[in-house]
């Protein structure tokens, strides 16, 4: 004779058992991932030392506020150009031929060095300029600049 019943006596798992079970689970995982955990602790320590941990912690807790501030700021008209430029700059980098640029930059450095080293000269006359063209180093530079100007002007 079993009547219809609906009361359930929940089995209260003692808090201690629950705690022990959880700890065992964690300990198992720690033991299985010893290396990663130790490295993680190392990382945490570095972050803590540098004060970054506190900062990140605060930021995460207030991320919604922070995001709102940042977004409000970024949405101001003056930033839209910057943001666009930022992306464009990245795109520009992609377009540049770094190898050529490197050689060009190397030469530029030479020039800067030379210019810095030289004593302040007297005025350069028109004739001096013509004469200077005979100097192979100056001639190479001028030729290169002319090529550059031609390339830049090309449609």
């Amino acid at each position, binding site marked *: *004779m*079993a009547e219809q*019943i609906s009361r359930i*006596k929940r089995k209260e798992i003692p808090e201690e058992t629950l705690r022990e079970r959880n700890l065992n689970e964690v300990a198992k995982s720690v033991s299985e991932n010893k290396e990663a955990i130790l490295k993680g602790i190392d990382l945490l320590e570095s972050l803590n030392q540098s004060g970054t941990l506190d900062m990140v912690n605060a930021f995460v807790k207030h991320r*919604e506020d922070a995001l709102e501030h940042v977004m409000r700021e970024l949405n101001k008209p003056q930033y839209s150009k910057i943001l666009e430029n930022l*992306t464009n700059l990245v795109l520009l980098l992609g377009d540049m031929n770094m190898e050529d640029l490197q050689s060009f930059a190397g030469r530029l450095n030479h020039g800067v060095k030379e210019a810095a080293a030289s004593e302040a000269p007297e005025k350069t006359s028109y004739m001096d300029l013509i004469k200077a063209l005979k100097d192979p180093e100056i001639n190479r530079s001028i030729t290169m600049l002319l090529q550059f100007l031609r390339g830049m002007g090309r449609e």
Partner: protein
Amino acid sequence: MQDQEHVLVTINGEEYLAAPGQNLLDLINTTGKFVPQICYNESLGPVQTCDTCMVRVDGAIVRACGTTVEAGMEVNTEMEPVNAAQQEALDRILENHELYCTVCDYNNGTCEIHNTVAEFGLEHQSRPFEPKPYEVDSSSPFYRYDPDQCILCGRCVEVCQDVQVNETLLIDWEREQPRVVWDNDVPIDESSCVSCGQCVTVCPCNALMETPMVGEAGYMTDHEPGLLRSMIEVTKNAEPGYGPLFAVSDTEASMREERIEKTKTVCTYCGVGCTFDVWTKDRKVLKVEPQKDSPANGISTCVKGKFGWDYVNSEERLTKPLIREGDSFVEVDWDEALDYTAKRFSEIEADKGSDALGFIASSKATNEESYVMQKLARQVFGTNNVDNCSRYCQSPATKGLFRTVGHGGDSGSIDDIAEADMVITIGSNTAESHPVLASRIKRSQKLFGQKLYVFDLRKHEMGQRADKFFQPKSGTDLVWLSAVTKYIIDQGWEDRHFIDKWVNDFDAYKQSLEKFTLDYAEELSGISKDELKQIAEQIVSVDKLAICWAMGVTQHQLGSDTSTAISNLLLVTGNYMRNGVGAYPLRGHNNVQGCSDFGSMPNFFPGYEKVADDDVRKRYEDAWGVEIPAEPGKDNHEMIGAIHEGTLHSLYVLGEDTGIVDANINYVTAAFEKLEFFVVQDLFLTETAKYADVIFPAVPSLEKEGTFTNTERRIQRLYKALDPVGDSRPDWTIITDLAARLGYDWGYNSPSDIMDESASLAPLFAGVSYDRLTDYNSLQWPVAADGTDSPLLFVDGFPFEDNKAKLYPLDYELMYETNDEYDLHVNNGRVLEHFHEGNMTYKSKAISSKMPSAFIEVSLELAEERGINEGAEVKLISEAGEVTGPVHITGRVSGRELYMPLNDNGKTAVNYLTDNRVDKDTDTPAFKEIAVKMEVLKKKGKSPLPPNNFRRGNPQPQVGVQPERKWERNDYEFPGSQVKEHG
């Protein structure tokens, strides 16, 4: 011949063979050439609204999707004007759709706008995005519509009008700013929308989205609306070209895969067997996504399959085994519960014999779980007392088919029903009970001229849509079916060739039809002689006839005989052994077919092999190392009787709320009280479980692996999407553990091992294995050892000695009528929103908000006669018991017939009214034969049907999305012509 079968088409200078009549875009898509296409969808066909698939054909720019291939066609997909036209179309789309992908919940790698723009290589748009003057519609609890993101591709309209055929959505092309509207432009929640979710499934972007997805899918989408808006603006500012935008959003999309799991599963509701991916994030179900390769359903779902999963995370789930102690259940650990159960079962067996125990398997559980339940009964306890809930619904259909054609299953697939020239449904509220299957019929009728004849007491949706609707008197289907068959034979219209070749016993059967004259049928069924003749004429005028039937046929005292009469008619007219024809008993539960298939029946081993057959029994005895009794055991109904008689002392019920769903529940629950030991295995503390001595907490389909078999005999795999809640366990594990405690170590490591054992023993499933069922692969039994399955059940004849079917003679006697005292007939069945006793669907707040309770449906005539109004409260009293409930007055029921949804487990539970009358051949309760009297408790009140129920909506039928109305607008210019002018 070659020339007639194929046409030669040149695309970008290369020649391709196309099928005659093939859609050009279809052909291009097989060549690997890229043509943008956003409104086109393989499952929907050409919609012709997005204009992106522009190509040049013989010198003119046209939509590829609107073009049919012709011999010698010259097509170009890449030349400049083509490209410009495509770009123009894409620009127009982006004017309507803001690309803020990184903070969009739809950024999951499948956004078709995103992917098309990326693949096309569009870097900038020439015209900026223009917001539209409409608010987001979040009125529905299931999905939301954002007109601002909507590109008006009209896929949602196509699917609603022509696939689901609910005819709710349309695009109002004539207003200044067109938008998708529901009914006559009402909020979604107040429309005729049945929330099947198919519009959301086919939406190419985030315009239509499942509510649980919103703010959940992305890493950066769950912010306050204002903040989200700012982020969208920043995203746009910072990402000037689409290239960088996509780089960031694609990265975010792949990060989502880290925390959103997509798991293939099989729907756990009706017998259609829809399959889909379920998206979960931790335990949250984000969405259900059917696939075009889903074998039974394609991209279709109904509200329950798409949105009805809340029960899985219900607070009411049982999480620990329970043992009755005094007046309460006490939570115990598994060892204690299993040991105790094993001990009690053994004691009863030792004391009172094997047959003192009974086992009831579940049509909600997997095939493997049915197999182990019957193995537990037969091997461990040596009894055949094992049955399942198909006893309540489908056994008569199976019986009728066994008698005539030898296999108890659908003759073909759902595709065959869609392909038929004529469909007859009998006693089936298909649109609510098997919604996805009904949609196939509705589509074929709407678009392809399929004739639909519906026979039912109640004028439900299928009745309203039917070409002809008949209301035979309750329980008289056998009569009109036999009379129509007789008339066909009398006229010499039978399929003589088919009968001579494939059918036995014609003469004896013809003899038995003597009494079924048109006069007799008219008198008993109420269908006039002229109508009966017309039905016969219609049947013989078509080449392909499919008959679908359900509980309106089977749950009668002559349920098996009526099912037999259906099969007889099909045999006489030659409607077997071909595609597009046959018998389709529509199985009600996800696995009602499989649960019987895999042996949880008192007279059958798996694969419908008789326990009385010595050879078969020996096969199982050898495999299991025990002796099995040759006598069939008791079915459900007999078990309950045996408890009352004192011969059955223990019952183990798995996943079935027997105390609600069996007939005459006062009698059934009185039996439970007499049990010596009662074990119930379920997700919830059901009304039945409340009588148990031990309750095992089981898991739902999302938390386990296994297979289900749908109404098409299609075996499909489900994968585990979630971990079990608490200490709950899959049914197969519980039964296996119990067997182990009783000395039988089955050694199963997974359900796959169980299937292997079953396949090795049952010839019907010889070739079934999990390897052949991976992902969306499926097998329709019988499956030969080499894995060949049988989409068409009868190909080389019928499974009898001489390969011939049998015509089975029938008699008829009217068994049930209302009388002067019990003057009203109660019909009962399903509603779309709920399932069975409602233990699962009422856990969904969203579904319950649409349909909060059961009701008693009363005809306009009866309401007037009894002076009651909508919302009145009445008591119905039958000879077995009584129910009370709120009244809903409709024109769907007529005269003295009432209708009650069976989805209630309280005072409106219909089975307080049903009695012990059963189908004479299968013991299936005659649920549909209830005579009652009505007492009015309150004359009016609050309507049980809330204002936001779809039944109150105003559908707007039309074919497709009607793009011509878009083209007629003054501001519309064909991208091709514009390009020409400007270029």
